[in-house]
Structures are given as structure tokens and as C-alpha cells.
């Protein structure tokens, strides 16, 4: 067991939705108050469980986007999948003052424990755990070198746009903002080359296809396999 895992079982609790806002045109952030608070590491996730009136339940995993330094609450950012079972409820139906069941913190592998320098490579909602790392690094190690590559479909899909920093490298896969110099494209070797450090870990998170591509490019750029930490969120 690692220090990322609390001793004993990871138990369910009922969290209060204390704030909620649009994080992009297709995603929403929920701030949740935990009656039984725990500490966590940037990169960890929670499991959310919904229960229908007839008792039917659905569970999904969501990464924590906030910094552990913000005690007393956590923030999740949920990308709306139009035909999804759980994400439309969290994005469109749940209201401030409602409650949801969750348990965590989960995962001891895709976590940041203060390593530096840090390369963050995110696609779509994969930016969520990377934002937790970035926020916590800015709070606890502001002089640590960090670079971010963010790949999104369109400007409207970019999460945390005001917070990423001017030097974040943005890639638009469907359409860029007006006046954007290059046509829509996928992640390329030169993106990795421009952001790579000579040492330290790379955290890669997003849809499976994006993570596979980014990890292969990082390997080709000389990152050792054990310095490429991956979190695959699912299809596309």
C-alpha cells in the first residue's frame, strides 16, 4: 500500500454540491463539500454513484481537478456526453444544494508527489487531473519548471482557459479560434519536442486514442517508458 491510499476501506459518503459553474461550453465543474474529508494527491479520482428511484445504480470515475491545498471541498469537472448515462445528469440536472454519493481518493499511480520538472499533456477532459497538478504545483512549488500541452476540439471545449497560463501549448483538432495561424490538426512530434524536458515525468491524460498517440510520441522523443504516466478516460 502507498501513502496515497488511506488505510482500510474507501467508504461511500454523501457529498453536498456547494457550487457549480460552466467550465467550457460542454463541461461543468461541481464543488463538493465532503462531510468526512480526506486528503488526496493531485491526479487521484473519485467514484460517483447515482441511484434511481427504483434502486438501480450507476457508477463512474471522475478525476479531482482542485488542489489538495483547498481543504474542505473538492472540485470535479464533467464533460457532457450527449448520449451518456451519467454525465448529462451531473452537467444538466444536478443543482447546488443537491447531494451525490462518492468515494475516494482512488489511485496511487497517476499522482504527483512533487516531482520536477513536470510535463503535462492533456486531451479534452484529460485536463482535469493535470489541472490539479498545475494548481497544486503553483501553490506548493511555484519555482518548479512545468509545461503543458492541451489538445481540444474547439476553443469552446477548452477547460480552465483563464488559468492554463500564456505558455500552454494549445492544439485544436476541429477548429481554432478566429485568426488562429494553423489549420486543425492532431498532436505532432514537434509539439512534444518544443515542450519536453531532459528529465522528470510526463503526465498524459485523455481519451484512449489521444493517450496512446502522446505516449508513443514521448517515447520517440526519448522519454523513458517509466517516466510516462498515463490515465486513459475511455473511447474516442
Amino acid at each position, binding site marked *: 500500500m502507498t501513502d496515497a491510499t488511506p488505510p482500510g*476501506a474507501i467508504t461511500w459518503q454523501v457529498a453536498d454540491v456547494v457550487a457549480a459553474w460552466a467550465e467550457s461550453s460542454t463541461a461543468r465543474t461541481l464543488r463538493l463539500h465532503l462531510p468526512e474529508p480526506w486528503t488526496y494527491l493531485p491526479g487521484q479520482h473519485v467514484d460517483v454513484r447515482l441511484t434511481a428511484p427504483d434502486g438501480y445504480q450507476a457508477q463512474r470515475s471522475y478525476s479531482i481537478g482542485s488542489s489538495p491545498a483547498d481543504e474542505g471541498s473538492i472540485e470535479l469537472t464533467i464533460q457532457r456526453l450527449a448520449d451518456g*448515462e451519467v454525465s448529462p445528469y451531473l452537467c444538466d440536472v444536478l443543482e447546488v444544494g443537491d447531494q451525490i454519493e462518492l468515494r475516494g481518493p482512488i489511485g496511487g499511480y497517476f499522482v504527483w508527489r512533487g516531482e520536477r520538472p513536470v510535463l503535462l499533456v492533456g486531451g479534452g477532459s484529460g485536463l482535469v487531473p493535470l489541472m490539479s497538478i498545475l494548481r497544486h504545483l503553483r501553490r506548493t512549488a511555484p519555482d518548479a519548471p512545468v509545461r503543458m500541452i492541451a489538445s481540444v476540439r474547439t476553443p469552446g471545449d477548452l477547460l480552465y482557459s483563464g488559468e492554463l497560463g500564456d505558455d500552454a501549448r494549445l492544439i485544436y483538432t476541429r477548429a481554432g479560434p478566429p485568426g488562429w495561424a494553423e489549420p486543425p490538426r492532431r498532436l505532432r512530434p514537434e509539439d512534444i519536442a518544443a515542450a519536453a524536458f531532459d528529465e522528470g515525468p510526463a503526465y498524459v491524460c485523455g481519451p484512449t486514442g489521444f493517450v496512446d498517440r502522446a505516449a508513443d510520441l514521448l517515447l520517440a522523443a526519448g522519454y523513458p517508458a517509466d517516466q510516462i504516466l498515463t490515465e486513459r478516460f475511455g473511447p474516442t
Partner: protein
Amino acid sequence: MTPRLRSRHELRLPRILRQATPARGHGGPPPPGQYYESGFPTLTVGPTPKVETAAWNLRVDGLVEHAIEWDWNAFKALPRSTFEGDIHCVTKWSKLGTSFSGVSVDELLALAQPKPEAKYVLATSVGGYTTNLPLADLVDGKAWIADTHEDQPLPREHGGPARLLVPHLYFWKSAKWIAQLRLLAEDEWGFWERNGYHHRGDPWQEQRYTGD
């Protein structure tokens, strides 16, 4: 008290349950907290390794009478069998009616002959991934070294050329790019097990995380 959903939203039944009963698999509800997925998502630690059959070896060692190593050709010459049924990933998806074939772990152990004190197995993959299992979960027709999925060679992203297949446990136990099974007297925790996941991982008991 468990909060219930606002009535405006209906949790829909998993798509596949609304369809005709699938040809394979039990067709009932999935294990607790799981949903049926029609695709085959991948979950891998780090980049996906490239393993050529020419460089592939499988070793069974530790507390056995005969430590044995098979190369690809020797492995392919072993008696084969097929699994047809459901698989369950801890990230919440289950897949109904899959088909895998390969060599039953029973065949390997019949040759290697476990010593009486062997109670656990540490499975190791190319690239260093590990997972631990009770020996009892690998015997009596419950586990395979699978090199074929739906009658095709197992794709690289799903662990090809060959993976461990232990379908009655969460799928992280089914180590991809399998290289070694080491028989042990004491349980030695593998990669996810050291990182907060359950040491056994029975989906029907919802043994996802340490302490479940």
C-alpha cells in the same frame, strides 16, 4: 440515506440489456457498479509495449518442481482451449459474450508441477507490470494464456501476442504481454494492488479497492 436522483433524469438501462439476449454470456445484469460496453476499451500503465513473437517467452517458475520456459513455437504446440463469456474492468465497463482462446494455465502447471507450499502467483509482463493472484484462482479451468480474441490474433493494445486471462476477476488481473508466472508461498502485491486496488478483485463482490 442514499440520495435519489431528481426525477427529471432517467438512468437508462444499459443498451445491451435492451437488445436481444446475446448469443454468449449469461445475459443477466452486470456485477454491481458495472455497465455493459459494446466496444473493448483499453487500460494500460504507460505506453503500449511492442512485443514480437520472436522475442516472446513465457516462464513458469518459483515454487515448482520444474521451472519451464516456452518460446512462441513451443507455446503454440501446447493443447489449446477456448473461453466464452463476460469480462469486467474495474473502470466500470463489462463486456458480454467475449471469446478468447489459448492455453489453459492448468496445462502449464501440469508440466511445471507446483510444490505443495505454493499458494500465490505473481504474474509479470514485458515492461515490468505485475499483478498477484491466489493460485486457486488460476486452476481448474478458470485461467488461460490467451493469444487469440474473437478468432483473430490478440491485438497489441489488448496484450498481444499473449496475455493472462482470468475472466472471473477484474481485468487488471489479466496481465497483458505476459512473460512470467512465479509461484509463491506468501502473497506479494503487484502494481495496482500496491496502488490502492484490491488484492483479489472479485467483481461480484465489488472488490475494487484496498479494503473493499
